[in-house]
């Protein structure tokens, strides 16, 4: 925790040094210069509103992409025939730029929430699938044989034998997933929505207002760090408990 704090303070010092050398608040203001406009945005309710809009979109896309990706990855990892058929699709979608999917979804579905969430979800699914598929391929055959001979119920087998083996892979997919998803959500908001952090950044980009662009992006980074530290990491520690016991 101390190293983490020192590391973040180091980043802050780097920023101050760069702002001091650059000496142009229009391009890079000092960190302190963000405080009073930040309070103004917070007090007016604008920042919380757009933050909430983006968070809801991130949550939706995250939940959908994880559910679909874990299912698909599990099926592809367990059944080589399905894998043979779906693998080329996976490669196509893995290499499809996020921007293309976003534009196509807006064109086909319309400039609405559904299109945004669909675009972000489709962007993330191949990634989750690839990681979870590796996990499914690495499942212990001896435990499977054991479960088979003892006629372990299918649901028990999935929950207590398969899922714990997949947990590190799902955790890896989730952590890289959240980071990627919120960036794509911002791009999608930038391109076609009238709310959210991405929309605000678009607005202040047109006004060439670096201070507000920084305020909005940093607020969201802070929220995501909080999610990482208070939810993702404790969950990971819990499922890893047996390793360190």
């Amino acid at each position: 925790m101390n190293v983490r704090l020192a590391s973040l303070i180091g980043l802050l010092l780097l920023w101050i040094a760069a702002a001091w050398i650059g000496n142009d608040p229009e391009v890079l203001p000092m960190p302190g210069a963000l405080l009073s406009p930040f309070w103004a945005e917070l007090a007016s309710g604008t920042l919380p509103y757009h933050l909430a809009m983006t968070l809801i979109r991130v949550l939706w896309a995250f939940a959908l992409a994880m559910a679909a990706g874990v299912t698909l990855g599990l099926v592809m990892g367990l059944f080589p025939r399905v894998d043979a058929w779906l693998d080329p699709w996976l490669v196509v979608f893995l290499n499809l730029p996020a921007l293309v999917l976003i534009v196509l979804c807006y064109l086909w579905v319309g400039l609405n929430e559904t299109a945004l969430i669909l675009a972000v979800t489709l962007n993330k699914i191949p990634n989750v699938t690839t990681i979870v598929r590796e996990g499914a391929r690495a499942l212990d055959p001896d435990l499977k044989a054991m479960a088979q001979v003892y006629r372990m119920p299918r649901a028990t087998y999935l929950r207590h034998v398969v899922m714990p083996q997949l947990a590190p892979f799902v955790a890896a997919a989730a952590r890289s997933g959240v980071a990627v998803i919120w960036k794509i959500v911002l791009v999608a908001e930038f391109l076609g929505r009238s709310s959210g952090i991405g929309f605000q950044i678009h607005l202040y980009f047109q006004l060439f207002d670096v201070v507000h662009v920084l305020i909005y992006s940093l607020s969201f980074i802070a929220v995501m760090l909080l999610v990482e530290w208070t939810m993702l990491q404790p969950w990971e520690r819990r499922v890893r408990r047996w390793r360190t016991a």
Partner: protein
Amino acid sequence: MDDAATLGTPGAALENCVISVDVIRKSFGDSHVLRDIRFAVEKGETVAIRGPSGIGKTTLLRLIAGIDTAFEGEIRRPDAMAIVFQEPTLLPWRTVSQNITLVHPELDRDSARAALEKVGIGDKADLFPGQLSLGQQRRLSLARAFAARPDLLILDEPFVSLDPLLAEEMLTLTEALIREYRPATIFVTHDADEAARLSDRILTLGGAPATLV
């Protein structure tokens, strides 16, 4: 049944058996591994399957256990089966007592505890398997096998990778448990002493493709 008769299955005698095995042919691709293996095991009887390593003992065991179902022939087995592998094969992410109750949903915590007491690790119920010594993990694997009173017990060289002292300890424990619960037991080993000590009958695999000799 006519088909079976022409193949020489001793039909009537099999009716009282816990398990009857009739493997006509088992091959992996072009390599023909097993042929014409026919035997049955009664309740309370312990049968050892011996043979040099690589002959196909484990292949046969996987057919008997129903892990591998791709073969020609017929195997009739009971529902309540238990297996002890060469390795403990536990769920390291679940506690010692959950390792029993998850595999046997019909057992409650107390019965699991009783099964653990039987093998001398009753005080370890809430630990994770990784916190046990290798010998204790083996004991847990035995407790799991006997906990639900199996009709058929399958042992796949359970003492092969142990040092002599631990092997003797486990052999004695296994002997006692088999005597108490009296399942039909099929036991694979390449050790003649082990086979003689634990089993009522010894079947030997030999030849290529392997059959009973």
